[in-house]
């Protein structure tokens, strides 16, 4: 009903018998056009970034880029150290962050009294806004300094710390959407609380939880700052040794972007293309479901 009214603004004017002056019409039309222009302007940066990353990165994308370690001057080398590093550190971070985030959200949504819930929720929201470089310093102090060794495990933990609040908040939101009737029915049947949560609530909220986890993973894949002081990076392909430095795609891009050798810059674009592709695919796949619901 409101929509019908909004769609025909001068209907109200006609109803009241007033006439909309020419100047006001001009202002109205031109501002609406400007607003539309602004909105389409916002679409340009994504296109611009995508275009240049694809244009420069596509030519660098090859099997060599993914399978060969860096070599002097980039000749015959690639980003295997980065690919392997990301493929290890991010899943480990998810392994830590998803259970912690989901269970923490379960606690806030299902068990905590409203004051505790508010405090924890507030802290999670604040954590989302903490600059990731400070998280890097935090994890450095506890997982690098005592051992005098930069290591991939510290990198994973830093990524996990960034992921936990994201998983927590998105999980909490999807848990709130689970109808209470389901909980009550389960309890009425004599199912204990913990099983109700696991089998009924979580299972129902699973799509939302997966969405949040995937978005958190996509975010973790692209993070550089927290890895600078934890995993440090390495030219070597490190498989399985979380006690030593590991490289990652964002670190690789950061280092190779500033190199004076064209071949290495090309590899940076190639790695960026790879990273962007994966991150965007995850985001598109995950959001495709939800934006239809949110708009309108």
């Amino acid at each position: 009903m409101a929509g019908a009214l909004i769609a025909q603004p001068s209907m109200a004017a006609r109803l009241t018998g007033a006439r909309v002056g020419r100047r006001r019409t001009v202002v109205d039309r031109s501002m609406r056009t400007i607003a539309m222009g602004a909105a389409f302007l916002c679409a340009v940066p994504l296109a611009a970034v995508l275009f240049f990353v694809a244009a420069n990165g596509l030519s660098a994308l090859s099997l060599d880029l993914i399978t060969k370690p860096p070599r002097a001057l980039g000749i015959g080398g690639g980003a295997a150290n980065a690919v392997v590093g990301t493929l290890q550190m991010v899943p480990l971070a998810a392994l830590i962050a998803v259970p912690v985030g989901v269970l923490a959200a379960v606690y806030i949504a299902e068990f905590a009294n409203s004051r505790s819930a508010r405090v924890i929720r507030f802290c999670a929201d604040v954590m989302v806004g903490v600059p990731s470089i400070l998280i890097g310093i935090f994890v450095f102090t506890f997982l690098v300094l005592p051992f005098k060794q930069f290591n991939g495990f510290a990198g994973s933990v830093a990524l996990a710390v960034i992921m936990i609040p994201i998983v927590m908040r998105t999980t909490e939101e999807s848990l709130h959407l689970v109808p209470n009737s389901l909980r009550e029915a389960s309890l009425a049947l004599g199912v204990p609380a913990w099983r109700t949560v696991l089998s009924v609530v979580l299972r129902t909220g699973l799509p939302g939880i997966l969405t949040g986890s995937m978005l958190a993973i996509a975010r973790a894949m692209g993070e550089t700052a927290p890895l600078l002081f934890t995993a440090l990076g390495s030219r070597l392909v490190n498989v399985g040794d979380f006690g030593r430095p590991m490289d990652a795609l964002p670190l690789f891009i950061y280092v190779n972007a500033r190199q004076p050798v064209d071949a290495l810059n090309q590899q940076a674009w190639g790695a960026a293309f790879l990273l962007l592709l994966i991150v965007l695919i995850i985001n598109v796949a995950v959001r495709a479901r939800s934006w239809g619901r949110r708009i309108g």
Partner: protein
Amino acid sequence: MINRASRLASLAFGAIVVIAGCASPGATTGPTTGGQGSQPPASTGPSTPQVPSGNVSLSGAGATFPALLYQVWIEKFGEAHSNVTIDYQAIGSGGGIKAITQQTVDFGASDAAMKDEEIAALPAGTKILHVPTALGAVVVIFNLAGVDKTVIKNLNLDGDTIAGIFLGRITAWNDPAIAALNADVAGNLPATPIKVIHRSDGSGTTNAFTTYLATVSSEWKAVGAGKEVNWPTGDGAPGNDGVSGGVKTADGRIGYVELQYAVVSGLASAAIKNANGKFVSGSSAGVTAAAEGAVAAFPDDFRAAPIINGPGDDTYPIAAYTYLLVYQDQTDATKGQALTAYLYWALTDGQSEEKAIGYAPLPAPIQEKALEELHQITTGGSAIWPM
């Protein structure tokens, strides 16, 4: 959902395994190859340090000045001894000294010898050996398109002019001071503003360059010399790679890097007026000439200063030694052995790699002294490579 997730997980794990398998030798974990390869006799005779058997992994960090050389060395050494993996992080001389002081790496690298305060900061009762490995030239690189839009490839500069540029006194490329030294391109010098790129990290290259500037310019003395200085003008970039990358990005930029970075980046470098009044470009020969002239002055504790304005028509005015920093007493016997063997290789076979990529090999007397120094490396009380 769960099935899809577990399928994804196994796919990812499989991908890791495939990629690790495809990655060329040098992975820190993998099938044990064991033993040494068959080698040129220089490295494996009974009177030379032996590479230990079994997998050994060494980590080092430090100067970017010799990083291009070390990358080649690590690859070549790795081909000869595939059971030894060496991870070198080029984070600048300052970072290298810090890392070896904190013992977060097995060896450090720096072109600036450790200062007295830095030596005092070492853990009590330990001693660091400065092992010189190579010499390099610090060249002034620039990215400049002339008025006629062609790239300017040759410029003559002298100490005064360079100081003026890096002090921010000379701000445009067509400044009379620059034109005066370059009669042939003076007409082509554009009005483009000069942007200085310097190091943002603690750097041995900066140490050599600022020592030169302090020597040739009284104005620069206020800024001083060292691994880090308060730059009057310009942007900071990390590492020799960052500076050369930064200069390469846009027209009008100037910076200072080790010679090989100029070569690999394709950037032009200036011919600098030396003590004999000749304009000399950076080259292995020019550095060798400088080094030979300074052999007599080489200190016993190996902490040599940059070689500035050496005599000779062909001498390049800014040259510096670069060092690997290792603890005299190695706590890990296997690593100590591998390290000593690597250092021996670097001081012998490795020297022949240097000229091809613009570094200069150690003068014979210095090479001898460095080899002798290796006898000092001990583990568990006894020398790893006895005399």
